[in-house]
């Protein structure tokens, strides 16, 4: 490579980042270097964030990190099933995960060093030399954690939180195994994909024999500072989200109510839907049709009849079956933390396999989430271009305090 550097040159790092996005591989093949450059411009510059050695998010606290945390660029979300019937084993696992979670949050690798070179290294090693990149690790418990096939394996069924249940079947559901539910969920987010992956990988490794992986989903997102990120349909996604710093909004929308079991204090509910998006048919539909589908201007994000993204929405100006109107008409708020995903291509059609890993946090899914999901499943015009292929709900225990471990009050109280 020549030493002359062009101003718009893509660094290897940005190129790697860009290749996490669908179609870049093809873009390189089709239109050469310029296409990649354009893609890297779209991606913005999140890579500068993770250079800072101070890029850490506290692991301990009133709430688990990774909910009211400004959304990082990359995520790995995984569900596990427990293999044991013994509560003590679960406690041991949660203790391990809590101490490992803290170590990862400050950029330390597993501190136990192997006592000789014939042993496998305790840490997998790929985070060495990288900054913590604002990694957060968020743990959730599925309804099968409390009651599995009618069995109360750990004697905790009576402490199941009020609103935890499997998401009921919805019209048009096309759920595919294994992407349904799970005893435990871990959401790992970071500004560096390798750091996020390293986190999940080592948490998985330390669960050996006690919990086995059920599904894994990776995701990415690029949000220019302070601006709403866009989904793969090119529309701003999450305009209505409350600011994570707005405590009263978070108390109203996200954090569990006082009527929940004590281990849920400071906790929440996480709803997950894996939504496949038919990118090709979307891209072939007219701009007008696309905007009618959302009820918003594609470029500015402003609702129909308004000038700016955050102007209040006048529902009467929006097409009846538009996404925004259908959602707003429920009168409910969610706190969204979705990630886009791409998974190569569909071999039967040659179409890109991509979509949205929808994640929302809410205080009461029965009131906030399920009615909205039902309504959208029935009448959202977006359904022409989407398919719900995965579904899960998890209770998020309250934050972990130093010296404590995940869901301690649930397992010991």
């Amino acid at each position, binding site marked *: 490579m020549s030493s002359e550097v062009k101003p718009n040159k893509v660094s290897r790092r940005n190129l790697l980042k860009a290749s996490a996005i669908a179609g870049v591989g093809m873009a390189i093949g089709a239109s050469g270097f310029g296409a990649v450059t354009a893609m890297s411009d779209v991606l913005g510059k999140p890579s500068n964030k993770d250079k800072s050695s101070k890029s850490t998010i506290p692991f301990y606290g009133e709430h688990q990190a990774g909910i009211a945390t400004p959304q990082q660029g990359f995520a790995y979300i995984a569900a596990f099933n427990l293999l044991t019937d013994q509560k003590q084993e679960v406690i041991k696992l949660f203790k391990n995960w809590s101490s490992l979670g803290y170590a990862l949050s400050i950029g330390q690798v597993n501190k136990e060093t192997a*006592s000789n070179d*014939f042993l496998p290294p305790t840490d997998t090693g790929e985070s060495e030399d990288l900054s913590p990149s604002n990694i957060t690790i968020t743990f959730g418990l599925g309804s099968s954690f409390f009651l599995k096939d009618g069995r109360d394996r750990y004697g905790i069924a009576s402490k199941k939180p009020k609103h935890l249940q499997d998401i009921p079947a919805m019209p048009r559901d096309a759920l595919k195994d294994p992407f349904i539910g799970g005893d435990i969920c871990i959401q790992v987010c970071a500004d560096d994909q390798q750091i996020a992956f390293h986190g999940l990988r080592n948490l998985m*490794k330390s669960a*050996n*024999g006690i919990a086995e992986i059920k599904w894994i989903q990776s995701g990415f997102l690029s949000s220019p500072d302070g601006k709403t990120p866009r989904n793969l349909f090119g529309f701003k996604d999450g305009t209505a989200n409350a600011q994570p710093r707005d405590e009263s909004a978070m108390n109203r929308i996200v954090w569990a109510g006082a009527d929940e079991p004590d281990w849920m204090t400071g906790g929440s509910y996480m709803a997950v839907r894996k939504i496949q998006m038919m990118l090709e048919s979307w891209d072939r539909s007219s701009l007008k049709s696309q905007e009618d589908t959302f009820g918003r201007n594609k470029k500015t994000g402003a609702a129909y009849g308004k000038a700016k993204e955050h102007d209040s929405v006048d529902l009467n100006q929006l097409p009846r079956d538009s996404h925004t109107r259908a959602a707003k008409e429920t009168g409910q708020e969610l706190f969204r933390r979705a990630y886009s995903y791409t998974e190569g291509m569909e071999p039967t059609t040659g179409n890109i396999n991509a979509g949205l890993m929808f994640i929302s946090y809410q205080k009461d899914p029965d009131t906030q989430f399920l009615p909205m999901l039902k309504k959208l499943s029935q009448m959202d015009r977006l359904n022409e271009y989407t398919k719900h292929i995965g579904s899960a709900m998890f209770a998020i225990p309250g934050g972990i305090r130093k010296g404590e471990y995940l869901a301690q009050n649930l397992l010991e109280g």
Partner: protein
Amino acid sequence: MNVNKNKTIIAALLSTSLLIPALSGCSSNSEKTNGGEKSPETSKKFKENDVKAISSSLKTSLNSFTKALNKEDNENIKKTAKNLNTEWLALENNIRESHPLLYTEIEKYLLPLYAGASQDNPDKATLKSLASSLDESLTKLSNAKEAEESNSATLNQAVEQYKKYVNEEASKLVISTQGFTDAVKAKDIQKAKALYAESRAHYERIEPIAESFGDLDPKIDAREGDVDPSEWGGFHRIEKALWNNESLGAMIPVADQLNKDVLSLQEKVKAVQLRPTEVVAGAMELINEAAVSKITGEEERYSRIDLMDLGANVEGSQEIYKNILPALNEKDKELAAKLDAKFKELTQTLNSHKKNGQYVLYTELTQEQIRELSQKLGVLSELMGQTAKILQ
């Protein structure tokens, strides 16, 4: 680097590292530079710095070889490989005593490298990959501590017992393969199929040992596509003929060669010097072998007896576990108990896939059953990785 300079370095190394201790041990033959006659006391005096010097000198020779390789200079490839090998022969005994595991590792790359480079038209891609692996091993050697492993009595006993097992399996392999190839030559398809499975089991139980003799494993156990079609022989070639109803007449030379190769394997197994590190690593390799290439159903693609291979890998690994148990109990009783429980669980699951004492065909397993086996192998493999604790 030219040959003369190379020789100088070897001479310098030998004079500082080997001869001085040798002289102090009352050996007056200063011309004899072969380290093979050194006493154990001598090797203990063999310090880290000396190992570093040896590593660095070997690296320099390897570097000359790589340069020749990059230039595709066949003449120099031969010459530099020969120099490297000569240098190694002069030094290897010291490393064998002080760093047995690394010794094995270096030999693993150097021997095929030397053999490959001596051919008239060497396979340069393979040589490059060998050279790069060898370079890594030499780096490890340069960083290695003096005492690589303990040799406690319990460990040595474990190795002795395991060696007995390996020899027994090798001899059963020879006998069953003779029966198998006789049936093939007699064109008795039913008998051949039955004896195929039996012979395979004996091989799979000791696979890591068999694999350590680089040239024999591909001859005996290569699957279709693993080697050049014109060279493909061994068990799986005959397997294909048997299950695809090919004419067995063409299999007669393949059968004869297979017999020769398992006999030669048995001879090598008898002579092999096993070390605790290799035995412990072997237990892990067997489980990984099962978890990587048996569980996917890629090993026995015509006979579909993959579960039998998998079971044999697990049995071979469990045998090692039993032999190292006393040593393991000294270090980590909890780990021993866990391994015991997990072996039992896996064996139970495997037994549930038997009908009339025989494993069902791989194709009869459901996705869920395969996943369950895979998950159990994973747990066992992770635990088995921890058994290297006994080596400290």
